[in-house]
């Protein structure tokens, strides 16, 4: 079976530093994979490479067999990769539901003239949009906050809203950058269940960065460990737990 995402030996360098060096990754459709590593290992840089924020200086990235490493960010999203951010980036002044609606933009096709004359096409699409957006919010238990300004949400809900917004673009692959950061243990457990749920419900592939080892070990099927931009271990959570390189990287030798 051909991989959904094929990352082949990508590297990037800023000046003399190589935050990502010969990184490779193959994701099958429907997998839930964790990307872990000590602070500064280059995890977020890999996400930035996958989403077109940086262009790899070597290697290539293929999604569904199509090379995407030379596309711009918004084009990569249109190909089917959505992401969340480590430091939350919501549309602060907009309401919760508007945040999600923005992300539906590419799935709507009405034009400005349609809007100016309130054509049936516009009305039908906006109605569909509203229902879809509410459905998404329900999955994350945000439906009661739909008209709240997103900036006023508590932190945990802001994180959930970011995931909801990412799902709204209808991705094949979802990249979660520390989804549980700043959440309390109970919220983390809830989030773990939600992540599993959306993987099955939307039939998508998920790659996540996380520092909460309990979360990572319990939901990921495979793990990739990196240090200084290089892969040091790959395997199931159990294999990683007992891998000496990984223990050394985290605890020192």
């Amino acid at each position: 079976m051909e991989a959904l995402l094929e990352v082949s030996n990508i590297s990037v360098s800023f000046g003399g530093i190589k935050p990502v060096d010969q990184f490779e990754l193959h994701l099958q459709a429907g997998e839930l994979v964790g990307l872990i590593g000590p602070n500064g290992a280059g995890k977020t840089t890999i996400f930035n490479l996958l989403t077109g924020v940086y262009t790899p200086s070597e290697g290539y990235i293929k999604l569904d067999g199509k090379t995407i490493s030379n596309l711009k960010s918004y084009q990569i999203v249109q190909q089917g990769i959505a992401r969340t951010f480590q430091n939350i980036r919501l549309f602060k002044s907009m309401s919760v539901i508007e945040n999600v609606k923005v992300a539906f933009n590419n799935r709507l096709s009405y034009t400005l003239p349609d809007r100016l004359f309130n054509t049936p096409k516009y009305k039908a699409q906006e109605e569909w949009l509203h229902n879809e957006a509410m459905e998404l919010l329900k999955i994350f238990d945000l439906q009661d906050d739909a008209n709240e300004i997103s900036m006023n949400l508590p932190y945990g809900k802001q994180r959930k809203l970011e995931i909801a917004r990412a799902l709204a673009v209808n991705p094949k692959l979802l990249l979660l950058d520390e989804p549980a950061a700043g959440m309390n243990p109970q919220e983390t457990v809830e989030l773990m269940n939600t992540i599993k749920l959306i993987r099955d419900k939307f039939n998508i592939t998920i790659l996540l960065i996380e520092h909460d080892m309990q979360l990572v070990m319990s939901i990921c099927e495979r793990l990739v460990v990196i240090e200084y931009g290089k892969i040091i271990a790959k395997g199931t959570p159990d294999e990683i737990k007992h891998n000496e390189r990984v223990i050394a990287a985290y605890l020192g030798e």
Partner: protein
Amino acid sequence: MEKKKFNPTITFIVAVLGSYIAFIVCMQQGIINNYISGIIVSILINVIMAVSLALVTGYLGELALGHAGFMAIGAYGAAITTMHLELPIYIEFPIGLMFGGMLAAIVGVIIGIPALRLRGDYLGIITLGFGEIIRIILNNMKITNGARGLSGIPSYSTFTITFFITAITIAILYKIINSRTGRAIVAIRDNEIATDCVGISTFYYKTLAFAIAAFFAGIAGGLYAHYHTVLVPSSFDFMQSIEILIIVVLGGMGNLFGTIIAAIVLCTMNEVLRSFSEYRMIAYSLVLIIMMICKAKNITFTSLKAKLTNKKGA
């Protein structure tokens, strides 16, 4: 949510027709004389300028200091068209206005493509520069009659025409803002990187907003030309852009209704305080400072109203 919602379209049409009839009645009764109705026309032109700039500065969140330049293009474009066409007013005036607006929009796109790569102060400076370039080009072209300006432009911008064009402009901008285009534009203001990461081409929407704003500034220019009947490039200088920007800032940056009110209040004040016109800039800066303090402390009309009603309740 429980509150009964008014249909915005019907409310708007009623408000527009109501105020139009009120104005017409006042004019016929002689309460509003020719001098005042002339002032009302220039206020309406400023309203169009302000709401179009509000799209770029308020909703898109980009500082643009060259709006008068687009107005100038529209004014000259429309004036030259109607002066050269020998057609009845109801044919040549719409053609002239559309031509002026389209010309301004095209220049807006041409300027926008390089300029919108920049943000914040840098974009402000480059649009300021482009605005001045437009003015200087107009100053040196044969067809615009250089610094002496154009005269003998037909006087087409009556109260009725200007009033309805203003109403249509507001309606169109309101609809644009409340559509997927508007959502994308506000998203760019809130967080450009996140907008990119939900698959929206920020560059496309920025250029689009810039072009729409330039188009309406061009229409306003066309009305201006056919109201004053003479055009000189120096009336579209940097200060003109600033005055429009002040209206948008006072209107609350990203509030269409507030922008309209601010345009009406400021332009009326200008006329009332004509005899103190040299102190106008002092008044402007004072108002701006008050505005900034209010903004920093989050004082808005809504919060003031909430405070007052709370007191009554207690």
